[in-house]
């Protein structure tokens, strides 16, 4: 596959070159392979899904065009709203905590005031390399009362101090897993952005007598704005498509985590347990639109502040 694409790209080269004096089409030779696969595996499914949302499979007479009925049904579906509310709550609490921790870690590592900086950098980043499934399995065991650490702590204090699988705490338990997985990754994104601040800026600040704290608030944080916007967008997307962790913890807490715990679990269960493909596609499309709109707003706000 790998070499086939390379050959394809090579073969595409001469044709665009011939016209280079009029308009420079050469770039397409490079971009075309990506765009072809992109259209096939990203754009085509979206279009196909949109078509699906306009139909409904009837008990009698097969598939019928129903216009926007699936959407109307979805907007009146309490299960959808409940799952959407849950991931929104998750987003509003987990994302700021995680990004805040990542920011602190990145600033600390960049400050050159740490002993053994590179050890901290790699150790905190390490959980990112752990598959979400494995992370959920490990934490699921740790949360467990049987041979987890939670059980040990509860035995130690003599009562049920921690109950990660209770309905009040299960969302926080999931938030902890996600924070553990992505804190280091976001730290690295922030750290990379801190590294491109020109050294002269610090020298100028030091000449002006600015302290460390002032350098952080006046130079480092403003320079991180773009990275923070990117990390926020990725985190929003991640929260809205929450699936792996709750789906795996469901084995351990089947009564607390429902089949519509998150919109994605709802779409999955509609498809694979309920065979309601059209309705499932509607959930996916609506969630895609909501995510894209919010990501766009965040991006817009982020770049508008940059202009000021």
């Amino acid at each position, binding site marked *: 596959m790998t070499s086939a694409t390379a050959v394809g790209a090579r073969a595409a080269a001469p044709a665009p070159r011939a016209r280079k004096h009029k*308009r420079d*089409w050469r*770039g397409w030779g490079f*971009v075309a392979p*990506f765009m072809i696969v992109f259209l096939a595996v990203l754009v085509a499914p979206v279009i196909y899904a949109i078509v699906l949302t306009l139909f409904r499979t009837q008990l009698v007479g097969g598939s019928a065009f129903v216009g926007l009925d699936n959407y109307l049904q979805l907007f009146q579906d309490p299960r959808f709203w409940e799952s959407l509310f849950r991931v929104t709550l998750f987003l509003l609490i987990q994302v700021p905590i995680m990004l805040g921790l990542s920011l602190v870690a990145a600033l600390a590592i960049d400050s050159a005031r740490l002993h053994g900086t590179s050890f901290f950098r790699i150790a905190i980043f390490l959980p990112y*390399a752990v598959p979400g499934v494995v992370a959920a399995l490990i934490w699921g065991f740790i949360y467990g009362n049987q041979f987890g650490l939670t059980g040990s702590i509860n035995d130690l204090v003599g009562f049920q101090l921690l109950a990660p699988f209770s309905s009040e705490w299960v969302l926080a338990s999931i938030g902890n897993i996600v924070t553990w997985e992505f804190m280091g990754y976001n730290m690295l994104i922030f750290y990379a952005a801190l590294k491109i601040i020109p050294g002269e800026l610090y020298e100028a600040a030091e000449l002006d007598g600015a302290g460390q704290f002032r350098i952080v608030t006046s130079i480092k944080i403003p320079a991180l704005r773009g990275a923070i916007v990117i990390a926020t967008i990725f985190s929003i997307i991640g929260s809205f498509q929450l699936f792996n962790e709750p789906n795996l913890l469901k084995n351990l807490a089947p009564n607390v985590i429902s089949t519509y715990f998150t919109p994605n679990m709802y779409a999955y269960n509609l498809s694979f347990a309920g065979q309601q493909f059209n309705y499932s596609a509607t959930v996916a499309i609506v969630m895609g639109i909501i995510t894209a709109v919010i990501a766009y707003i965040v991006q817009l706000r982020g770049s508008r502040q940059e202009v000021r």
Partner: protein
Amino acid sequence: MSAVTSPKRPAFARGTKPTHKARQRKSIVLTIVMAIFVIYSVVPLVWLIVNASKDQADLFSSFGLWFGKDFNLFQNIYETLTYRDGIFVQWFGNTLLYVVVGAGGATLLATIAGYGLAKYNFPGRRAVFAVVLGAVAIPGTALAVPTFLMFSQLGLTNTPWAVILPSLISPFGLYLIWTYATDAVPTEILEAARMDGASEFRTFFTISLRLLAPGIVTVLLFAVVATWNNYFLPLIMLSEPTWYPLTVGLSQWSAQATGVGAQPIFNLVITGALLTIVPIVIAFLILQRYWQSGLSAGSVKQ
């Protein structure tokens, strides 16, 4: 000039930058605070290593963060690899296949396209950029169900292609190479090569590719992690256990502990989880100087 040489030597480029910082006093308080971060990050992994050395009985009877009566790590590894005629080894092979073809292909496509976007001003360039950036905002998992429905129409489900094809696209990788190539490949070098009569693709493969190396390693590593860790897509695409990657296989083993006819194999789940993360952690540690410099793409420009 520094932009030409430094991508090859990320470690040096990094080391030379903040001369003013060398004077800074080390802070013990800050080190302690960061130690808490490290403990949080590492304790679950320590738990995994410790408990991979226990048999089922010890798992239930001993403290989670210390070893049990017997040291059973090798026994556990043997059992994991031979359970059900070595299905774990097969899953491992499947994961490797998906990673090599999927992540390798994704890196190749993203590198070539990112370079094209950075170095050529062609009609429709802005449109390509807008569409790809827009795609970043589409949740991959929300796409999975529609992709499954389309692939099942095409008869692609339950084949390796169902997992490989969607992982060939990495908008983030494209973005990273695009920003990296803008600085790492000087336009003057390309013009000089054109003067010498080299074709655009020859220039790319002989000159630009080498300058892009740290960026490519970064994209490759993140694509490898994404495919190695892929769970949702194979979960819905594959129904035949012989095509499962490790992630889906492990979750099936874990689910085996509950429900009707439960056959808990906690020790195998834990050992299997450890075996799943070891290769990827090693890859990160070995390649760290590359991806760390690749991520700070802009840091090479002075």
